[in-house]
């Protein structure tokens, strides 16, 4: 009986002391893709954070897509398997990568809408 009571106290203490940092950020990206010759179902879109692919999807038949995934660093990038020509974003500071395959979203942004992403092909 007494042992059980001690176990109870110990468990209570263990719970109250166990605090790990759980404040994690989730990225949420919405967008619309425009292409002239590509098939939309062949287009892969993904979010990369700290070199890890945290979310991936393909656009719907109208070109829309929604993506969400956990972030491991402050900034993230939205990647495509085809080259991007132009894009318009709801937030400023986004840049196109050198190989034109990804849009780099600046640090501190976790919610962004791309009203139009036009592919090169």
């Amino acid at each position, binding site marked *: 009986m007494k042992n059980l009571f001690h176990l109870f106290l110990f468990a209570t203490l263990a719970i109250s002391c166990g605090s790990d940092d759980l404040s994690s950020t989730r990225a949420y990206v919405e967008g619309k893709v425009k292409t002239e010759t590509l098939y939309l179902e062949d287009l892969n879109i993904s979010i990369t954070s700290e070199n*890890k692919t945290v979310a991936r999807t393909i656009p719907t038949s109208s070109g829309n897509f929604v993506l969400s995934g956990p972030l491991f660093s402050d900034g993230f990038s939205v990647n495509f398997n085809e080259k991007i020509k132009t894009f318009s974003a709801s937030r400023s500071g986004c840049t196109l990568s050198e190989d034109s395959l990804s849009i780099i979203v600046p640090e501190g942004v976790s919610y962004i809408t791309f009203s139009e992403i036009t592919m090169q092909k």
Partner: protein
Amino acid sequence: MKRILFFIFLCISVFGFSQKKKKKLDVVSNIEARVLVMKALGNNYLAKDFGVFYGFGFGGQLMTPMNFGIGLDYNLLFGDVKYGHQNLSGNLGSQNLTNIGINIIHRDYISEDFFLEESAGFSIYRLKSSLYPGNEKYTEGNGGYNLGLNLVYTLDREGFQQFVFGAKGNGYFSKTYNENPDIRKYYSRSFLAGFTLGYRYNF
């Protein structure tokens, strides 16, 4: 805040029980093993992007003769992201939801064989998943509250063994952050409701 609450709780339980020892009142205890089924409700991540959660759990209680007591619960639930919702959950798989809770319990005796048990308390939540490819762990969650109503059926004359049929309601709050308040709410709040079936041993 959480720690302060626990500390107050600890003091109450320490003083409460030490008093009872002197008066020679019997505090009875029991342990329980259970299986449970839970479903998240509302417009949120756990409800829309996950199916039903199945799991098992263990519990222990200390009951005073005034039909009040405290209980400690550990539940482990397994869930799967619904097909077609992977874009909203991210590259995460094999989710499990851990729930550790402390409850205040009150009993109402209906008949010799049956009694009702109401409980309320707060709990700690961890939604763990692994990022694929690879096996990196990702944890979210924080705290919540739990409410329960159990119907307990006594199996033997001495009252050692009991069956427990329960209904459970759990609030879930996590620290998951997004700039957009709607998205933040979607990913960080939920309410789960479910049923439990347990076997309890008193000593």
